[in-house]
Structures are given as C-alpha cells and as structure tokens.
C-alpha cells in the first residue's frame, strides 16, 4: 500500500474512532504496532522500555485523536512514540544493562533468510552483537535519527518534523552517529581490510 492510500485509510479509521468506534482505533493499532515496536526498540535498546513507550504512545494517541490534523497518522504516531521513549529514558536515567537479552541467549535466533549458509549465519550473529553494542554507545538522539533514516526510510525533513529539530541538526546527528559507529566497529572492520 502506498503512502497516500495508507493515509486515506488512516484518516477514515481516525474519523470512525473519533465517533466512538473503538474497533476502528484498534485497526490502527494492529496496522502499526509491529512497526512502532521495532522502531522504538531500536531507539531505546530495551524491550521493556520499548513496550512501555509504545503503550504510552497508543494511549496518548487515543486520548488526543481530536488533535490529529496532520496528513500522516504514521508520522504522528512515530513522533509520539519517540517522545514517549525519550521521556521514559530520561526518567530512568540509565542505559539498559542487558540490551536485547534474547541475543545473550544462544538458543534465540532471528529467522534466517532462506538458502543462507551456516557460516553466514554465524557471521551475521557476530555482526549483530557488534552493531548492538555500538548502537548503545551513541547518543539517543543520534540513534533516533539513524534509525528513522537508515531503517524506516524517512527523509531529513520528515525526521526533523518527527524529532522537532532543524534539518541541519538531523544531518549532523546522522553523520556524527555514523562516524561514531564506524569508529566503534573498527575492530570488526579491520580484519576485512587485510
């Protein structure tokens, strides 16, 4: 479904939810809960915090449906969720001690792409761990900008609107974050050079 069709469907459901139809809002929840959770967990690096933030985001969206006037419900929801995530992180004032505990468990593996060799799966696991460690090392703002740009595919202007900063700040966060990630991943990158 392209963006404009998605927006039209969302607006219809929002109107129905405003009229008091809870099922319409829950259709929106079903449509966006996977996206919102995966985006948020990448930003906060803690599944518990991500769940809390996503729940707060849906609660806040429901409470304030009357105030939604933008063109993209997805972007509106993303902004609320990012705000909720940052808010929770600020309140907790801590970094997760064990981000993605599933990865500490050797038994857990994300679904591997088809026809992948066992060696590639092992290397991918190593790469995941390195990326996860380095993503924790950059600031929450840099991480948010990188996730929204590299993973979710928003452009600079959309990220600026979501995070409430200027385009220049978004660019700076993305580039500085990537440079920091590159420096952090240097030990993993070096063997490939030789």
């Amino acid at each position, binding site marked *: 479904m392209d963006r404009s069709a998605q927006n039209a469907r969302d607006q219809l459901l929002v109107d129905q939810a405003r009229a008091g139809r809870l099922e319409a809002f829950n259709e929106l*929840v079903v449509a966006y809960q996977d996206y919102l959770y995966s985006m948020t967990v990448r930003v906060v690096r803690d599944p518990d915090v991500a769940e809390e933030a996503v729940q707060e985001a849906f609660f806040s969206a429901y409470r304030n449906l009357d105030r939604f006037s933008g063109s993209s419900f997805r972007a509106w929801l993303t902004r609320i969720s990012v705000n909720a995530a940052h808010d929770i992180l600020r309140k907790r004032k801590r970094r997760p001690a064990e981000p993605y505990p599933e990865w500490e468990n050797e038994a857990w593996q994300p679904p591997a792409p088809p026809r992948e060799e066992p060696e590639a799966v092992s290397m991918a696991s190593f790469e995941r761990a390195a990326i996860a460690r380095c993503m924790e090392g950059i600031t929450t703002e840099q991480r948010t900008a990188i996730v929204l740009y590299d*993973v979710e595919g928003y452009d600079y202007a959309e990220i600026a609107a979501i995070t409430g900063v200027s385009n220049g700040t978004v660019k700076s966060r993305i580039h*500085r974050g990537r440079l920091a990630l590159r420096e952090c991943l240097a030990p993993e990158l070096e063997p490939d050079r030789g």
Partner: protein
Amino acid sequence: MSDMSRPALPPSASAHDQHDPLLVAQVVAGDPLDPATADPVRTWLRTCPHCAALAADLARVSAAVAREPVPPRRRDFRLSPEDAERLRGNAVTRRLRRLSWPRSRAFAPAAAGVMSIGLVFVVVGYAWPDGGAGSIETQSDLAPLTQTMEVAPANSAAVDSFDSEAMDASVMSEPAPADRAASGLAQKASGVEADEVTSDTAGAEEASRAEQAPGAGALEANRSAGVAEQIVGSEAVPAEPELTSLAGSSPMTESGTEAEWQRWLVLAGVLLAAGGGALLLLAWLSRRSRDPLLP
C-alpha cells in the same frame, strides 16, 4: 563483518589527518553541498585511500544498521473497552484537554508580559511624582500653601510688585539675563504639581528680586505670583486677566487633565493586569491538560 571486505590501506595517514570526516560523510550520504566544498572532498575520495575506506565503511555501517534484527513484539497493544473508557476521562478532563493548544508555551510568557505591563501602569499611576494631580483640589492640600503665603513677607512684596510694575514689564520686549531664574519659576508655576505650589514662596522671593532688576523678569515673576494668587483663591489678590493668559493655560485645568490621565493609566493598568492574569491562568490550565507526548 561479512560484507565489509575491501583492500588493505597503506600505513601512512598523515595527509588524511587534514581531511574532514564529517564532509566525507556528507558527500557519501549525497547531501547537497556547494561545489567549493564538495569538489575537494570528491578529490580526497579519489586520491586518499583512507577517505575512500571511510566512505566505504560508512555505507556498510548504514546498511548493517538497517539489517539489524529486533526481538519480536511480546504483547498486543490493542485497547480494551476499559482502557478506552479510562483514557476518555470525565467531562471536566475532556474540556480541559480541549483548552490545551500547541502554542501555549509561547503564549504564557506573552500573557505574563501583558500582566506585568498592567501592573507597571497601576504602580506608575498611583506613585506619580506629584502625589496625585487631583490632590491640590482639596482644601487640606491648599492649607500649607496659604500658611506659607501668610508667613512669608516676601509674598506680599510679590503681590505689590505685581500691582506696581506689571504694566511696565508688559511693554518690555527683551528679557534681562537676570530673569532666567524667574522665567524658570514661571514655567514651574504654570504646572500644578504640589512641590511647585509650595515653591511659590520662593517664587515670591524671585518676584521681589525682580523689583531690583527691572525688565521682563518682573513680568515673569508676576506671572508666578499671579499663579500663586489663583491657587490661593479669595485670600489673595486676583490676577489680571491678561497676565493670567500670559502665564499659560490654567493650572487647575491642567490639574484636572493630569488627574484624568492618571486615572486612565490606572484603569488601563488594572484591565491589562487582570486580562494578562486571566490569560496566564488559561495558559497554565492548558499546559496542565496538555499531553507532553504530543507533537
């Protein structure tokens, strides 16, 4: 990393230290840069193996971040009817929520500013230096002046000087230098401020001195004496009509104008302060009811 293989770099990196990695990152990301900035960076990417390696690494890091898997969602976020009922809130909460608007943060300082201006108006209106223009209209305010006029012998001299020399002075065209003080006094006397009224004793003295220095100064001194007579009322010799007109507008009229102006100032201040306060309260209610997570 599985997809990060590329040729080994030469050991020397001294030239590369001068290259800005942030600019390289911008060029790699395709950010629009002016040619004067972008062209040297493109040259680095062609000639400097470290910059080329940096560009390749950044592209790979970006791709690796995009491929990073996330743990699966563990719960369903759909709202139950109980959640919905709770989130809707009661009628008061809903009304308060409607009060909130996105710009309320900027609105509050503006409302506080309006209220402050109003308070300043009120304070200035009440604490005007003349102690209230309308205050000399009462007999109690005039009493000290009357006493001064009775006690100071110079006052009668001033009145006498008015009678004997006013007409002579009125024909003089050039003011004598010695009359500057008397002129200033006359200007003061045309006002209605309380301290100026009490200074009319000094005005009478100046008028006495003006007797010794014939000229326009006598006229000016007589003006102030005339004003004093007007203020004292029936106890003093009334001023000649033409001399009163020479002294400028009627002090009592100006007194009334200033008092009215003062009253308007205080009224405007009270209205501004009350309006600003009400808007501030509204902004506070708005901020309280506003959801902090909203854009």
